[in-house]
Each structure stands twice: as C-alpha cells, then as structure tokens.
C-alpha cells in the first residue's frame, strides 16, 4: 500500500465538513444516534422507564375522571403530560449530564477536541440528538395514554407542543451540560443529577398535583413546573396563543445553564 501515492494524488472525497454547516450537523446527529441505539442500556432505560411508569399509572389512576384535584382534568390526562415532561428531563438533562461526564473521563471528549470540529457543532449535534430522543419518548407516552383512552392533543396545539418540546429540551440540555461541567468525575454524575432532579419533580407536581400557593410560587420560578404546565396546556386544552410566561422561565434557565456550561465546561479530566 503506497502512502506517497496518496499524498501526490489530488482528488479527495470531500467530507461533510466541506459542505454546508447543515451537512456537518446531520453528520453529528447521525453518529450520536448510532452510538445511542447501539448501546442497549441507554436505549432500554431511556424508553422503557417512562413507558413502564405510564403503563402503571394508567392501571392505577385509569378510573379517576375529571376532578378539581387534577385541575379539572382526568388523572391520566394530567399524567400523560407530566410523565412526558419527566421523560424529556431524562433524555435531555439526566442522560446528557451523565454521558458528557463519562465521555470526558474516558477521553472521548479529548478525541473530539483533537479534530477541527467546532464545539458549537458538537454541542448542537448532541443537543439535537437529545431533543429527538425526548420527542420519541413523548410520542411513546402519548401512545400509551391513547391505549388508556386519553385523547390526543388538539390540532391547534401542535405548534405550541413543538415549541415547548424544543425550548424545554434545549433548556434542560443546557442544564445537563452545566451539571456535567460542575462534577469532576463520572462516578459523581448520576447521584448529583438525581439529587437535583428528585425534589424538583416532586415540588413541580410531576407525580401529584400541588395545591399549595407557596410551593407553586417557588416551583413556578424553577424550570420543571413551567415545562409541565406548558405541556399540560398543549395536551389538554385548545387555548390559542402560547404560554409566554412558562417559555420565559425556561429560556432564563436555559441561558443560566449555558452560561455555567460555557464558563466551566472541560474537555479533559482534571489532571492536576
């Protein structure tokens, strides 16, 4: 095999990097998807957990009709939205934080850093992958809900649903990167992720509706409840317009997460 022959040759296959930015982005998403689906653990846990929870909730609360406790909705109408929300949290925030911390520890991020791929392209590819996984999760949960007789979102709500998923997904990705930037080793990532997430989903009414004005006031300023509320609105009403206040809170958290990530993110494990 001649090496010299190659270097003398002029015709080279242009990689996606030479084409438009979108090509490179698609390249990144494609390989993120490949890595994800090949790993039986990540694929199973990401999709099995929300579907199992939804199936159990369907069996538990299927008989509870519209009530004031669920803000005038049936129990399952309520849970389809909140479990969908928590599955997006899982795919965007938890998964991303753990995956990044692990990749950094393994040296995979350093390998990425060794190529001309920009940090921007890498993260946008990763983020798009996470949001895609979140969307698949939401579709699965909606399907399980449908089996239990929960109606699909009104057609007028699809744009709002899409905006909520993309904005929420992006904000939780930013927070996931922020957490990955703040832990120093991969072993610390899962407990830190859970420590933040667990109380947050409870006070945000994910598993049971909250009727305390104080708690709702606090949770309303945190990222999970606005996401729940925006999804609940899209899934169960046909109100016009968009939930701007919820979007505003999500956007601010997304910006805060990005700021921490940009300042503190490391590509290589700490050596000294």
């Amino acid at each position: 095999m001649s090496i010299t022959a190659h270097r003398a040759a002029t015709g080279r296959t242009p990689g996606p990097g030479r084409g438009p930015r979108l090509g490179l982005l698609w390249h990144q998403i494609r390989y993120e998807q490949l890595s994800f689906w090949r790993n039986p653990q990540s694929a199973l846990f990401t999709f099995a957990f929300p579907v199992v929870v939804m199936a159990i909730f369907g069996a538990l609360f299927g008989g509870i009709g519209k009530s004031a406790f669920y803000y005038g909705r049936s129990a399952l109408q309520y849970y389809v939205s909140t479990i969908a929300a928590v599955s997006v949290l899982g795919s965007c925030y938890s998964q991303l934080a753990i995956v990044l911390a692990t990749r950094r520890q393994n040296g995979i991020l350093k390998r990425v850093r060794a190529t001309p791929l920009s940090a921007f392209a890498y993260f946008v590819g990763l983020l798009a992958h996470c949001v895609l996984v979140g969307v698949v999760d939401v579709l699965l949960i909606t399907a399980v809900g449908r089996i239990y007789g929960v109606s699909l979102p009104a057609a007028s709500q699809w744009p709002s649903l899409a905006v909520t998923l993309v904005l929420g997904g992006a904000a939780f990705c930013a927070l996931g990167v922020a957490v990955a930037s703040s832990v120093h080793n991969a072993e610390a990532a899962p407990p830190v992720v859970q420590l933040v997430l667990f109380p947050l989903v409870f006070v945000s009414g994910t598993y049971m509706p909250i009727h305390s004005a104080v708690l709702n006031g606090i949770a309303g300023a945190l990222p999970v409840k606005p996401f729940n509320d925006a999804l609940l609105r899209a899934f169960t009403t046909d109100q016009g317009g968009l939930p701007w206040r919820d979007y505003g809170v999500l956007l601010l958290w997304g910006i805060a997460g990005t700021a921490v990530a940009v300042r503190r993110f490391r590509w290589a494990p700490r050596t000294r």
Partner: protein
Amino acid sequence: MADAVVVEGLHKRYGTVWAVRGVSFAVEHGEIFALLGPNGAGKTTTMEILEGFRGRDLGRVDVLGLDPGERATERLLRERIGLVLQDIAVEPWLTVRETVARDAGCYSAPRDVDEVIDLVGLAGLERKKVRALSGGQKRRLDLALGLIGDPGLLFLDEPTTGFDPHARRGAWQLIRDLREAGITIVLTTHSMDEAQELADRVAVIADGRIVAEGSPAALGGRDTARARIRFALPPPTTVADLPVPATPGADGLVTVESAELTRTLHRLTVWALRRDTVLAGLTVDRPSLEDVYLRLTDQDHSAPRRSAP
C-alpha cells in the same frame, strides 16, 4: 523552509511549581523527533502545549507556522496536525469504519476512510465494534484517527506501549513509512529501543529542561565516549598484573575504559596469550542509549523546583 515545530524558552507553571522552565528545541520537516524523559519531567506538559491542549506562561511555540495557544487559529491547526495520545478514546458501540468515518467528517479534506483503515492494518475488521477490539487493534484505530485528517505533523504518545514484539516492529515500519510520505512525527517514548530504531533526533527532558539533544547515536557524546572492555581476571592474576589500568567490579569482572580500543585490546590479548590463558566473558561495548539516558536523567528529584524562570 522553516522548521515544523519551534519551541523557544517555554515555561509552564502549576501554582508555584515550574513544571517546564526554559525548554527550547526545533523539529525539522519530515523527521522523526523523540522526546524522552522520566514521568513528571515536563514531557507531557510540553507535548500538551504543542498540541494546543494547555496554555503556557512564557516562551514562543510555533507548530506548522501557527501558535497552538491562539484560539483564532485553533481549527486551522487541528486540520493540519494529527494526535495519537494515550488518554484519547472513542465510542465503544460504533464499528471501526463508523469511528473513522465519523472523524473524517470533521475535517475539510480528509483522507479516504478505507485507505486509512487499510494503512494501519485494520482491513477486514471494518464492521467490528470498537469494544470488541484487542488493545493493539485499538491503538491502530487511534493511529487511523490521527491520520484521517491527512496531517502534515503527527504527535504520537508512546505509540507502541503494550505491543508484542511483532506488532511493535510493524508499527515502527509504519511510522517510518509515514515519514517517507512526508509527515513530520513528534513522539514520546519510554523505550530506548524505540528511540534508537525510529528517531532521527532525540531530546531528553529532565526536571523541566532539555538536558541533551542529538541523534540517538550521538546523544550525550555516545559516539565519542570511551569504549568499555570487560572480562574475568584469569586466576591467580590481579588488576595490578594487567598491562592497562582497570577497575574491578562487584560481579567479578574487571572493566577497562579505552579511547584507543584497537591498541588496548591488542595489549590485553597479547598479555593473555603470553600467559597461555584466556579473557573469559570478554565483551566490548559503548554506553547504550539507555546508559546515557539514565545518566542524563539521574537527578535529585526531591529538590524543589521553584526557581524563577
């Protein structure tokens, strides 16, 4: 043409400790340059500064005409250099071909994926998952990733650690072939054999400084050093009976150092023949690269390294 790598007065400090204090060297285009040194001598820090992974405190660094500490030209530098490092890893669930193709997509003018896989000797394993590769195969994949961007300069961090002797010879030949193809290579190694076999020039770094630089054959005055003649004294003679000055060693052999090897050997053999005896275990050698290396790097490492640059 200017040198591929120029380092002048490089300093790097961690807190109050100067890990690198005044390192200077140059690597010519198309040569294999080996950086040797014990762990903690500043070798890794120097390499990481050249590779653009670490900032510096003082000094000038020029890699293919670019400053690796300059963010504005970082991507340009990444297009031109290839890295094969110890602590670099890839996704375990992708196949060999997918892994190489993924990185190819990150460069504006990559080499052909199958050609590179073939070049590093992974042909036939394209569809194998990375996690199922052996240690040596993974190192070859690392090399493929270092080459996929068609670099003009390749950094190799201990390229054959963990290889069996056959794989090692193969890797050395491949590295020589890369040099023939015009790629400049900067490598680190702990193996003196490797430096001797591969490197056109060697620099030894110890305690944050370059203590010697030259061809492996001439490093530290090896080529001009006195030859050593060693043999067992035939009983009942003593060192005093010998026609040349000699020093007895703990292993029962005496050592004679000589700047005029032919003459000294002649005197010794004539002396032995006249007594009708033999010089048992006779060997003649010069200091090996390892001897020179050990002498150069044998320093009191407990000494504080806080001196100002």
